[in-house]
């Protein structure tokens, strides 16, 4: 349904999108994931024919975005990051206006307007001015305008940004319910969103494609690897971190041992196994046989979040640690509530 090949978009000084290729099958929900400024919005703008690509091609439903933009536009519903609403218009008038722009008329238009009003739960505000609506309603009206002409492809740029947790859940359910009839690309920098709504993930960072796979595969990719946290203490008080670490590395199947922290007499390590190796039992035995105490041993499963950080590279992590600005913290807390 959507095919992107070697797509590049350069602005005056920066390259926002750098040779990205991916394709999306009909009827899928695809999560477009990346930190802020990764190039998500730019890619979406190219797909919606708002911006022309600098190099490479993008086709939607078989039509090229440069050669046949009108055919592409007819088949796409787009919700930009801020819903494109005219504050002085009433909801229903606005939807009629957008419907006409997308080529609907007469009874068909009436029918579709009624349909999206119901589908997006905005019937109760249909006579209200858009400028007076709350953020949640604005977002839903934005979705309603995107689906008004029943497009084959829906492109949603951060559809849940700035909503409260309840609204986020409502919006997600709404998007999921749309999946059967439409092919959906939705961008987000919030991970749980992808886990909850999408089947397929495309991860980009700094304009480059990092990974594209199904959510299940991405999780499975690291499933064979066991990550274990263990806390070791010396019997008679003194243990040397290096000695313990060395001993743990001797255990067969262990890929990596990282010394985490040393508190009083307790040492914490994170151990990662090689693919397909179960090492927990051997680790416990090794510790006990060496005469140390095993205080704690638990699995540290890799969440999509860690996969993401791993894939987008240590740079992203570093960035996050360096600028622990209030804005950044606010964003993380938002992620947690979601």
């Amino acid at each position, binding site marked *: 349904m959507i095919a992107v090949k070697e797509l590049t978009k350069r602005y005056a000084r920066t390259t926002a999108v750098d040779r990205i290729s991916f394709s999306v099958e009909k009827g899928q929900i695809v999560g477009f994931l990346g930190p802020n400024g990764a190039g998500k919005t730019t890619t979406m703008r190219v797909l919606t*024919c708002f911006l022309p690509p600098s190099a490479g091609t993008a086709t939607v439903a078989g039509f090229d975005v440069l050669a046949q933009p009108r055919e592409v536009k007819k088949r796409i519903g787009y919700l930009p990051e801020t819903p494109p609403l005219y504050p002085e218009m009433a909801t229903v008038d606005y939807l009629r206006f957008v419907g*006409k*722009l997308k080529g609907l008329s007469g009874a068909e238009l009436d029918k579709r307007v009624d349909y999206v009003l119901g589908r997006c739960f905005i019937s109760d505000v249909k006579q209200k001015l858009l400028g007076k609506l709350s953020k949640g309603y604005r977002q839903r009206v934005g979705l309603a305008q995107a689906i008004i002409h029943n497009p084959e492809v829906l492109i949603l740029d951060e559809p849940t940004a700035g909503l409260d947790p309840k609204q986020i859940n409502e919006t997600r359910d709404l998007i999921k319910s749309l999946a059967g009839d439409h092919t959906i690309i939705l961008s987000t920098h919030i991970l749980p969103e992808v886990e909850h709504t999408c089947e397929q993930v495309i991860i980009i960072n700094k304009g480059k494609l990092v990974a594209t796979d199904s959510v299940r595969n991405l999780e499975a990719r690291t499933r064979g690897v066991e990550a274990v946290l263990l806390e070791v203490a010396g019997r008679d008080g003194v243990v040397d971190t290096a000695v313990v670490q060395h001993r743990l590395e001797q255990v067969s199947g262990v890929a990596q041992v990282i010394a985490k922290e040393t508190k009083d007499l307790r040492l914490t390590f994170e151990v990662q196994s090689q693919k397909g190796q179960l090492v927990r039992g051997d680790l416990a035995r090794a510790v006990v046989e060496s005469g140390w105490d095993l205080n704690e041993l638990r699995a540290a499963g890799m969440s999509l979040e860690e996969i993401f950080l791993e894939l987008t590279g240590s740079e992203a992590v570093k960035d996050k640690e360096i600028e622990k600005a209030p804005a950044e913290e606010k964003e993380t807390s938002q992620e947690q509530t979601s």
Partner: protein
Amino acid sequence: MRNTWTICRKELGSYFVSPIAYLLLTMFGVVFGFFFWNALRYFVVAGIEMQMRGESVPMNINEDIIRPLLSNASVIFLFLIPLITMRLFAEEKRSGTIELLATSPVRDIEIILGKWFAALVLYACMLLFTALDFVFLFIYGKPDWKPMAVGYLGLLLQGGLFLAIGAFLSTLTKNQIIAGALTFGVCILLWVFEWVSGYESATWATVVSYLSVITHFDSFARGVIDSKDVIFYLSGIFLGLFATARSMESLRWRS
């Protein structure tokens, strides 16, 4: 064509739902009403004085009231037109609604014509306000309606030109005030360019004064349709809308 109409209706809605249209109409109505009252009073006083002196210089409502008033109106509009056009594109760019228009299966030129035509309709409504004043002249006198109609045609053409320039300047920025100020500056310059011909007769001066929009209005005010002036306005409108289209297209390549 259908899309142009859709956009035009929406724009008219924006003008007339918000206070913009009513504010402009009221302001113009009051200012023009004052001009009208002044001209009429001067005309009446002059008439009485002449009667008292026993002179009988022929007085003509068309020549002494309507013609100068239409010229005045064309100057008042210089100040009001930036207020009509400044929001046309700047507002859409600021609020992001331009993305909706640009990603809908609509041609740029349909968007531009729709917006320009809506602005022209609001402008025409303002012109109608002047007609309200002139109704009194028809009740109490017998002015000739034909030169008046020509004058209105001239005002409409001149307004169309200024609106096209304003639309173009509004595509250049996200900021309505910048768009308005630019339009205002350009309109004023196009008005005062004709002064050049007063002290300079070189070719460049002829060209510059030819560009002056106001000089082309004189013939219309006199009740004469001069094809040279009609062509000036029409080609100006075309140029303005063409520049708007190019500017909209370049937004996509620059941004």
